[in-house]
């Protein structure tokens, strides 16, 4: 406990770095997954191909991705951009299916009514399909957020500063307190992400809170 208080500044700095590395990809990944998920619902063959491909992306070991990306992108190995891009890939892998499911979950009668009222395909997605998909997409985002927070900690192995540092450093020094601090900080951060996503979804979906 005293160790944690003594190192509060460092913990907070690394927590903020961790939050960026896990959070920014969450936003970028969502922005990419939205059109992909929409595309997946257009045709059966796109659906199959896209969801299999994005699903496979998630199986690439994170360490491999962190190390491979610089040679593909021509970035420096210590550049945090590598981590951001890798995490974005994982987010897209997790969210594409969720977005596709969410967008297709609209009651057929509601969709028909929208078509019959003269909504074009884009307007319909924006005003009908997307808002109604929010609860499903938010659930997917929560999973992706937790997953991102945990995967980002691996990046300490390639020397990028975030909370994972306490795990590797504590382990190297056989100093369990530091490891525990790292774990607790990660859990707290995941919790904050979860609450933020829940809060935003809550604000955006007043209709889900009425008596059904």
């Amino acid at each position, binding site marked *: 406990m005293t160790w944690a208080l003594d190192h509060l500044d460092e913990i907070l700095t690394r927590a903020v770095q961790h939050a960026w590395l896990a959070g920014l990809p969450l936003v970028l990944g969502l922005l990419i997954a939205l059109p992909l998920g929409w595309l997946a619902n257009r045709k059966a063959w796109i659906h199959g191909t896209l969801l299999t491909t994005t699903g496979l992306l998630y199986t690439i070991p994170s360490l491999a991705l962190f190390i491979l990306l610089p040679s593909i992108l021509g970035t420096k190995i210590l550049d945090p951009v590598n981590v951001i891009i890798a995490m974005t890939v994982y987010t897209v892998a997790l969210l594409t299916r969720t977005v596709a499911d969410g967008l297709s979950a609209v009651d057929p009668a509601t969709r028909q009514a929208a078509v019959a009222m003269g909504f074009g395909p884009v307007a319909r997605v924006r005003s009908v399909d997307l808002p109604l998909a929010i609860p499903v997409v938010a659930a997917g985002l929560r999973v992706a957020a937790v997953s991102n927070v945990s995967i980002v900690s691996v990046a300490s192995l390639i020397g990028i500063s975030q909370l994972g540092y306490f795990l590797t450093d504590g382990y190297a020094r056989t100093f369990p307190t530091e490891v525990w601090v790292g774990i607790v900080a990660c859990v707290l951060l995941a919790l904050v992400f979860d609450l933020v996503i829940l809060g935003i979804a809550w604000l955006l979906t007043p209709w889900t809170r*009425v008596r059904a």
Partner: protein
Amino acid sequence: MIRFDGVTKQYDTGSGTTSVAVDHLSLEAPTGKITVLVGPSGCGKTTTLRMVNRMISPSSGTISIDGRDTASMDVAELRRGMGYVIQHAGLFPHRTVLDNVTTVPRLLGVDKRSARARAMELIERVGLDPDLARRYPAQLSGGQQQRVGVARALAADPPVMLMDEPFSAVDPVVREQLQNEFLRLQSELSKTILFVTHDIDEAVKLGDQVAVLRIGGVLAQLATPATLLSDPVDDFVAGFVGRDRGYRALSFAAAPELRLEPEPTVPLGASAEQVRATGATWVICVGESGEPLGWVRAAAVTESVTRDLLHRGGTVASTDGSLRALLDAALSSPSGRGVVADTEGRFVGTIRASEVVPVIEARQAAST
């Protein structure tokens, strides 16, 4: 006027086979009138309706509105000029009742304030409490949702309404209310309406003309409800129109002026002596403004006429009603004398079935 000209719709059913949903349909739905499409499940009613707003495109043939071929029109513009109402309403669950109703006017670029003002007007007009405007669809009953569906379809004041079984998902009592209000609205608005149902009673009640389709999407008969009931073209239509059609056809025959029997009446609370003084076995009890409340059996009155002594089985016919209502009033009356009220609902006299039947027979003789 919506005009179908040799419209056919074939669906590909895979591996080179096709099935015909609508077969060379030619039909006119006159301006300002209700045309009902009726037929058994799968006979192509929904397909026919959706070809009008091009949610489905015909395989051949043309559909025109006031002489303009719909195929040549901008599809969004075409759809925004038509209200569309479906079973279960298809309301947007994430929008309030008010925002549901303003959807099309907003799409058409009407400013928010005037769209809302008009929506509130419509919400009341379809018989909804204005307080419901702030609610979400999940907070409404099925019947209320259906009314919102109608208000939403009417919001941009389209000349054409397409309605696909709009009242079939609600219970019979609510359905009847919705039907009656629909007829009242239509008498004020005079839209050109294509109305789909599989319920022949609904078709006959609502339609100015009724198109009966058979499986395979072939038009079996297009006629007024009265003609459909009295003169079905073949066994299929006769079978579909169903039993009791002789009796039901009387709904369309206006009651002629008949000589009504005067009756002694007593007010509620009349004493046993008053009742016996009339000398009748069954006496009509009337309310304060002369409206018939029910029959009372003289022998059953020990002290005075109370509400629980009233026999309520009898129906009341109106002087401007149908022959069916007159006959029904007579047949349902415990005294055998059918109660007739004037257009203001005041009791005017009674009539026996034996006096109504000759009128029916005279009509038949005149029409052959």
